[in-house]
């Protein structure tokens, strides 16, 4: 601030930005460049330039399937968290300060208690002797315990809870800024509650939804622990492929190709969501 006061307002004080800037150049930008270079290397000593790893990755339908499954998992997580987050956000804006505070606590608590613990909780819930199976058996809805671990359904259920706070926080933030008289006006003009939701609240909450969808998509596609522990060895997504290729097989160029692919896939998803927002605003 000592420098900022001297600068005319509106200018970035580069001396104060430099420490974080250089930290990022040295420990963030440089590693990512090396990752990109490694994906074009013949081996992990950069002996020569080679496209082999890219050809091997994209030429194999198995690996293309892994990319598709990873992106689809992220999209399904976005849809599921959206469906469950809007009702909570509506409850939030309809509530008084005390309930609001309680809801924020309920949203923050799982967010702050480690992805590993949340994943562990879902093992207890989805296992053969777990909560879901005990309940279904007791109600007589099934005669044999269902196998929910190591299935995509189980993984999606778990990821929905694990990622929901990331959708809820921006959604709640934006929705409490919506002027309530807009909904009142829609109701007074004879709009049903459904119509008011879809024509007034949903469009106005879009910026929050886009921020939430971006975070959920980025997080669900890279949720290594949840994917390996709940998905198991049979379901392969890009994160477990990256880990296996780099730390078990030690094929660094190939792992780098998978990592760059994951990076591009996540950034494409992020850009898609922001384009969607721009498109929705103009129509």
């Amino acid at each position, binding site marked *: 601030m*000592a420098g*900022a*006061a001297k600068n005319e*307002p*509106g200018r*970035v004080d580069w*001396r*104060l930005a430099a420490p*974080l*800037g250089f*930290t*990022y150049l040295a*420990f*963030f930008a440089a*590693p*990512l460049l090396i990752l990109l270079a490694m994906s074009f290397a013949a081996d992990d000593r950069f002996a020569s330039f080679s496209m082999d790893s890219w050809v091997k990755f994209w030429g194999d339908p198995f690996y293309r399937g892994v990319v598709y499954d990873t992106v689809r998992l992220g999209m399904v997580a976005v849809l599921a968290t959206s469906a*469950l*987050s*809007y*009702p*909570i956000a*509506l409850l939030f804006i309809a509530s008084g300060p005390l309930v609001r505070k309680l809801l*924020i606590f*309920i*949203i*923050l*608590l*799982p967010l702050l208690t*480690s*992805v*590993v613990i*949340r994943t*562990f*909780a*879902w*093992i*207890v*819930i989805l296992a053969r*002797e*777990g*909560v879901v199976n*005990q309940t279904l058996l007791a109600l007589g809805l099934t005669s044999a315990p269902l196998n929910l671990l190591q299935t995509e359904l189980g993984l999606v259920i778990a990821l929905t*809870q694990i990622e929901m*706070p990331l959708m809820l926080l921006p959604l709640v*933030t934006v929705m409490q800024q919506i002027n309530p008289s807009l909904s009142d006006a829609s109701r007074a003009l004879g709009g*049903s509650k*459904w119509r008011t*939701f879809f024509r007034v609240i949903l469009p106005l909450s879009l910026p929050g939804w886009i921020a939430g969808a971006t975070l959920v998509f*980025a997080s669900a*596609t*890279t949720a*290594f622990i949840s994917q*390996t522990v709940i998905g198991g060895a049979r379901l392969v997504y890009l994160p477990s492929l*990256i*880990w296996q290729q*780099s730390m078990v097989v030690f094929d660094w160029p190939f792992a*780098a190709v998978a*990592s*760059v692919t*994951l990076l591009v896939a996540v950034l494409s998803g992020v850009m898609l969501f922001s384009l969607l927002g721009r498109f929705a605003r103009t129509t």
Partner: protein
Amino acid sequence: MTHRNTISDQSYSVVMGGLATLSVAILVGPVIIVLLTSFTSSRVLTFPPPGFSIEWYRDLFDPVRSGHIHSALANSVWVAAIATALAVVVATAAALAMARSNRASARALEASFMSPLILPGLSYGLAALMFFSILGFRPSINHLIAGHLVVIAPFIFRTTLASLTQFNPALLESSASLGAGRLYAFRRITLPIITPGIVAGAFLAFVASMDNVPVSLFLSNARTNMLPIRMWGMMETTLDVRIAAISGVIIVAVLVAMVVMDRLTGLTRRMSM
């Protein structure tokens, strides 16, 4: 006032109310189930627990049988503390650097400072491993600190920048016209106003470092084992009930920290702003 479509309105209330109840149950349920499971008397993970016992907590606190968990916790706390302390300095300075700027250069810089939150951590973790090993560094806990610093700095940057936008620059001008030096004005005016933002950001950053998997997965080794990686290993192999006890300790610690942080910084208000 009468409305048409009362059946439709009722269906709205039923559907939204039902979904809201379900969502709250899904959010809170797993946390409660883990807490209850940690007091089980059984050697396997069943729910509901067949009986009550604190043997898993006794096992967890036993320095001989759980020594590897204790050292993983010590590593995690050390890395989180140093990385958070460094991040507070560099991220607060960066937030101050662009607080009153609305130019394209400031917005571009802001986006690049926030980018580690969106870029997949796993890609970065592998990139950091390649970076340190190509430079010829031997594995060290300092690499973990550097990697965590990059990943957690955005949390402090964001909350500090948010508290600076509510800051009235006229305060600085009047203090200057009253003869205050710039450093004095920073210490007596700017710092007190942005401190809650810095503290809230530091709390989130510390928690993010303690929970970090993607960077630790690649940069930690047998000597510098980190708690989440150790817990992942336990889940993949034996599914030891001690994981439930570790979870119980962490959940209670987070709960206490959240209440304290809310008193100190208005954390709940800050998170929904």
